């Protein structure tokens, strides 16, 4: 691995590693019960007792962040998986077959793209219900059109390259050409997209919580913690800062790691032997 690559990859790895450890740990053990109310300790500042302070109900912020990490990570991961797999299938198919199928799919896709993702998710949430899996389905479907659009574009430009013609001349079927020669070459744009989408979902989940359609309280997620901190921003600034910091650090880590993964997967970036 090259030096400049390993540095950013290492930072990304450390951040994401810490997050995963915290998430796993949070599922099993937290310093305090994340749901336990304690009105004597409400809105306590960070101290030796409560490292990151407590919220308006006296719940320990660190414990809630740890417990929320698992929920947030899980939601983002599944959402990205849903959007990327659905979007890739639709986009690659559409870009490769072209013709009428492509035009119908893309017309529908563009219509969906015209709605802001969050609005689409809101509508879908109203149908499937506001819970963890509802959010995953709603956000996943809301983000599918943009993945499909980008994948279709990538495939359209790839299929004009001579190696795709070469594959047909060899006698490879369309499906094989798509799987063996086109899909692997889509990985670079896909990793970039997937990592940035991870960030969008973390943010979208907070927005949904903010609008009262996220994971229902009292279960903690970073998003609803951030959202519920708003009325107390003047008295207890740590309530907003720590979930916000968690979200931004995670985004940074994912982006660094995503770039490293993209470069690792690309033989052209591995240097000359």
């Amino acid at each position: 691995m090259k030096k400049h690559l390993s540095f950013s990859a290492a930072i990304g790895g450390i951040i994401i590693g810490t997050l995963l450890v915290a998430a796993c740990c949070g599922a099993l053990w937290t310093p305090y019960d994340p749901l336990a109310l304690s009105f004597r300790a409400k809105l306590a500042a960070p101290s030796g007792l409560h490292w990151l302070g407590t919220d308006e109900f006296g719940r320990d912020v660190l414990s809630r962040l740890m417990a929320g990490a698992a929920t947030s990570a899980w939601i983002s991961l599944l959402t990205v998986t849903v959007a990327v797999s659905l979007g890739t299938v639709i986009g690659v198919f559409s870009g490769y077959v072209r013709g009428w199928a492509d035009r119908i799919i893309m017309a529908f896709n563009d219509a969906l793209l015209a709605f802001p993702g969050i609005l689409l998710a809101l509508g879908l949430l109203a149908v499937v219900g506001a819970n963890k899996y509802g959010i995953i389905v709603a956000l996943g479907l809301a983000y599918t059109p943009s993945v499909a659009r980008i994948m279709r574009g990538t495939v359209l430009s790839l299929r004009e390259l001579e190696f795709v013609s070469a594959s047909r001349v060899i006698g490879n079927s369309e499906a094989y050409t798509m799987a063996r020669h086109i899909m692997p070459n889509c990985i670079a744009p896909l990793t970039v997209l997937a990592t940035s989408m991870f960030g969008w979902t973390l943010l979208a989940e907070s927005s949904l919580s903010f609008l009262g359609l996220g994971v229902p309280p009292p279960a903690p997620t970073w998003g609803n913690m951030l959202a519920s901190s708003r009325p107390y921003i003047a008295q207890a600034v740590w309530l907003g800062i720590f979930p916000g910091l968690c979200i931004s650090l995670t985004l940074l880590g994912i982006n660094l790691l995503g770039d490293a993964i993209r470069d690792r997967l690309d033989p052209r970036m591995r240097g000359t032997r």
Partner: protein
Amino acid sequence: MTAQDALLSVRDLTLQIAGAGTVVVNGVSFEVNPGEIVGIVGESGSGKTLAARAVMGLVPPAIRRAAGSIRFEGQEVTSMAPKRLRALRGARIGMVFQEPMTSLNPSMLLGEQLDEGLALHRKLKPAERRALILDMLRRVGLGDPERALASYPHQFSGGMRQRIMLASVMLLQPALLVADEPTTALDAVVQRDVLELMVGLTREHRTAVLMISHDLGMVARYSDRVIVMCQGEIVEQGATQDLLAGPRHPYTRKLLAAMPLRGPSRSFPADETPIVAVRDLVVDYPGRRRLLRREEGKRALHGISLQVAPRQVVAVVGGSGSGKTTLGQAIAGLVRPTGGEILFDGQPITRSETGYWNYRLNCQMVFQDPYSSLDPRMTIGGLVGEPLRFVEGMGRARKAERVREVLGEVGLGEAFAGRYPHELSGGQRQRAAIARALVRRPKFVIADEPVSALDVTVRAQILELFAGLQARHGFSCLFISHDLGVVEQVADRVVVMSEGRIVEEGTRDQIFDAPKDPYTRRLLSAVPALENAPNGGVRLLWRLDGDKAAARPPAMAEAL
């Protein structure tokens, strides 16, 4: 003539990559006298472009001048203030670039672009400038210069754009014209017209020309002196005739030897079933789809008939837009014909027919661009072995052995099997592409401009390899090329195409020695015939030079 009299005098010029310190141009010295045409010949990486660009102070920021002086009209260019250097560029030294498609600004009217330089360097009234521009456009052969002024570059073909580029440079009547591969992107016929024009124009204005090219034949035809560069150094320079007739440096000999020579004539029995028979093939490209209707399409092939006998190499030649590539793609099954039929081994090539798999397995293709014809995510071994997955009854070990064998045949060797395409040079990639086409031992190979993206000496190696493999395995071949020199070397039969029709066909010797069609004659007049001289030198013979039919047609119908 002393250095004082020379228009341009470059002394011990050394250029380095800043930081790394790699020397890219090493101690280069040469002179250009007023009105003289000097050619710099070399392959990619020889430093020819950098050396010439340094004359205008146009080297990329990453390149640093380590030593040497460049004097132009007695003034030192290297120490010149940027403002004076700018006054020199355009006004005294003009430059024509390689790529006519990108060297004109696509968002500016031609009138404005042509006016830019004049307005900057000459104190003239707008009306006078306009008159000058119209004059020059007429001189470079534009049919309707008034209309051209109000047009955008995309409305012109590549050859026309290069003419316009030339006009814009010559408007200022510079003392020196630097032409960096001015016609490499154009096809043979257009190339010749543009060069004739360039030479004519510069002679009129007594402008010296520094012509950079990889094409020794082209340079030899138009230059007074030739400089040969290799790996950043000048290996030989001298008067063109002397250098060609008596090259002293081994590299010059190698370059001369790389120029294509006619191969031996072979005969073929007339009664064998042709491996490929094309009858009245018509291919239409659909027009752009509008909201409710389709625009009218374009007919790429108007009823082509052609046969390729077993073991025969048939060359298809023509300029860009002649339909030669479409013909190859139709036979390869990449383009669906609108009409006519293609028989392979006597059977139609449609998917439903019994002969389909025989066709698919035995008809292979080598593509033009080795940079895009190999999947960047697969290893060379994987790529070469991929076609074998359709070969029945061949075990894994046998397949691995075949891949090794074929890699050896194309001169790559086993060590390359684990590498990725980006780790290979252009020539090596094309070898890999040939290995991939031949791994199933096909009966028929379509080679679409297989060497046009390669350097001359690499080109010669690949052609030799290809001819050797063809003789050894006896596959038939459809060799598509715009380069008649290459065709003369490899082809048994030649088919000349123009605008989707076959204008002439015959054996190689018939076409090259007694061409009948005017278009064939124009094509031929653009390439030299070679005659070997004793001491490794060559004599260039220009075919049909006095031929009226070969000359440029008077009406330039190409404009707009």
